[in-house]
């Protein structure tokens, strides 16, 4: 995609958001990446290998499925972008394939990553197995406990999983620890960040790797409905990578309305929430300036969401910018609304969504829709990893 007003400037800023707020020890790593990422990812060789792997290894293009019964219920036309059908079960692998190729070109031998729900960790461990690279995944100790199947997968794939005991023992703390590892291994290590967060150029790099989602939507809609854009794209936002990828090619088309679903947890009026764009103030965390849930002294407040993948106090700088400019609307969705939406999709369409994706589905019941409109909902991942949570919820419901 050519330079648009939604691309970062040369210092990595989207309006006032973004940048690279990193200690001096990381400057050489970040400079190396910044100076090479476009050159490499836009090279013919990279594009060829990236698309080959996306097709033959991951199974892309993922289907754009017209959800007939869900559409009837909401009196509109709903198309589900089936990222849940990717190898490893979520959109995360688009990014890890791209970044592991980049790491290889940069001559790195050791890969590190952070993970919350474990989806990005599994996707990273997978590409490292594929490429025969050493892989270390940092995961909050609490998440290690609540996402046990993904921990087993990562270990089976040959990765070392390091449980992080600091802070709230979730995604934020895992990210801190991954950054410390990177600071301590400045020469040989490549850090595969899993979302559109972190210092420049990561937000732009990850958005580009995920932009294949909106690229395919555009082609598929053209075949299905005879035009290459929908009226709406709906996606969940934690750090915001599936949303960034799903919005990417539609950002400059004002006919496409873009809505993000944030995790409200138990409600934005409670202290147990992760709705960064609803509640956050501008701040600096993990190398970039963006909205951040924090107290008046700038201490980061531990977030809460039923969904480990959305349990993060920050958000990618692109989303802060899209909100500030009014290009995109972000709506908080509670745990309960997400659980109800997951149940509804399962029973109407026979698809069990990830809890993260269920937040996007929950947007459907929040407003009335036009019968003739077409919307795309990014179904970012499948629900296998969430069966424990679902089973607790439904056993509770039946009492």
């Amino acid at each position, binding site marked *: 995609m050519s330079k648009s007003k939604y691309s970062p400037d040369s210092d990595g800023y989207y309006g006032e958001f973004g940048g690279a*707020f990193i*200690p*001096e*020890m990381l*400057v050489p790593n970040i400079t190396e990446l910044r100076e090479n990422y476009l050159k490499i990812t836009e090279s013919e060789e990279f594009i060829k290998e990236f698309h080959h792997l996306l097709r033959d290894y991951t199974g892309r293009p993922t289907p754009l499925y017209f959800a007939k019964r869900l559409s009837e219920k909401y009196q509109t036309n709903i198309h589900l972008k089936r990222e849940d059908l990717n190898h490893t079960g979520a959109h995360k692998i688009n990014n890890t394939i791209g970044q592991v190729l980049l790491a290889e070109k940069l001559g790195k031998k050791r890969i590190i990553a952070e993970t919350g729900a474990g989806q990005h960790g599994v996707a990273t461990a997978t590409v490292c197995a594929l490429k025969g690279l050493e892989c270390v995944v940092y995961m909050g100790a609490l998440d290690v406990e609540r996402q046990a199947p993904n921990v087993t997968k990562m270990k089976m794939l040959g990765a070392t999983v390091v449980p992080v005991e600091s802070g709230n023992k979730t995604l934020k703390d895992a990210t*801190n620890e991954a950054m410390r590892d990177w*600071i*301590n291994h400045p020469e040989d290590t490549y850090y595969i960040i899993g979302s559109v967060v972190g210092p420049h150029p990561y937000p732009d790099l990850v958005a580009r790797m995920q932009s294949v989602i909106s690229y395919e939507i555009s082609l598929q809609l053209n075949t299905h409905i005879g035009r290459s854009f929908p009226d709406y794209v709906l996606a969940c936002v934690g750090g915001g990578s599936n949303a960034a990828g799903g919005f990417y090619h539609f950002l400059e088309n004002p006919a496409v309305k873009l809505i993000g679903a944030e995790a409200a947890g138990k409600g934005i009026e409670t202290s147990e929430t992760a709705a960064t764009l609803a509640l956050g103030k501008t701040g600096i965390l993990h190398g970039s300036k963006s909205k951040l849930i924090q107290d008046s*002294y*700038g201490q980061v407040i531990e977030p809460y969401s039923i969904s480990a993948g959305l349990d993060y106090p920050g958000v990618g700088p692109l989303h802060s910018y899209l909100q500030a400019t009014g290009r995109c609307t972000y709506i908080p969705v509670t745990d309960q609304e997400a659980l109800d939406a997951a149940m509804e999709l399962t029973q109407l369409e026979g698809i069990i969504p990830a809890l993260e994706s269920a937040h996007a589905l929950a947007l459907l019941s929040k407003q009335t829709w036009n019968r003739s409109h077409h919307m795309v909902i990014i179904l970012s991942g499948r629900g296998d990893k969430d069966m424990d949570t679902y089973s607790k919820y439904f056993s509770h419901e039946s009492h």
Partner: protein
Amino acid sequence: MNRIDELFTRKQESVLSIYFTAGYPELNDTTHLISGLEKAGADLIEIGFPFSDPVADGPVIQASSHQALENGMNLDILFEQLLSIKATSSIPKIMMGYFNTVYQYGVDRFISKCATSGVDGVIIPDLPPEVYEKEYRQSFEAAGIHTIFLVAPQTTPERAEYLQALTKGFLYQLSMSGTTGNPVVGEAQMVVGEDPSVIPQTNGMPVMIGFGIHDHATFEMACRHANGAIIGTAFIRHLATLEEDGRQETRDIRQKTLDIRQETGDRGREIGEICKGFIDKIRG
């Protein structure tokens, strides 16, 4: 004249800077630590203001930051503590912490509080020099607050020159690239020891070496390559582990501080003894 400049005019060798986390071990230890370190012979003090997510720090400073926040430390309390000791303490003081806390406090408000509370300089490791130069340099310099930048072993000569042009007071040279608290164990491990040429040509700008300096030997080693050294983690560890590291000298200090506590209940004297024990050990 800024007291950091005064210090380096007066003394060019074996300058010892000690870092501690404000609010640790107890909320109101700040003034005791400052006067204790000053009396015990430190030349410079770095006062860390805690942040919830200190990515450049190893486990020891992380834990002290966490405890300090649990104890209720914040910038308003810290500036009040510093103001209360301003009239009686003349040692140069540097505030060190992460940018988000400064940003939320308001950079201008932070600068003016530094100026009125007897702070001479600041170190904000995650504030990029480019952003500093464009948005904040003028305000810091107008208030006479020195901003000190870090130089890593991998920093290119061009960038080191740029950092030196922005920095005031001294350059903070990292002994190695890493988070705080990875101990330097031998001169060969200290990158500056292996290759002294990585220390930027500073045209008279003082250089202090930090990260991994933890005892008399590593302090001496650092002093051979620079004007002095900065010790943080080892001091925090000293404060934290008096009860458990098992060495005779530690037991001696521990016994002394316990006696003071039991006999007088004087926290200032107790902390003073702890500071003296540490600095004597480092100075050798």
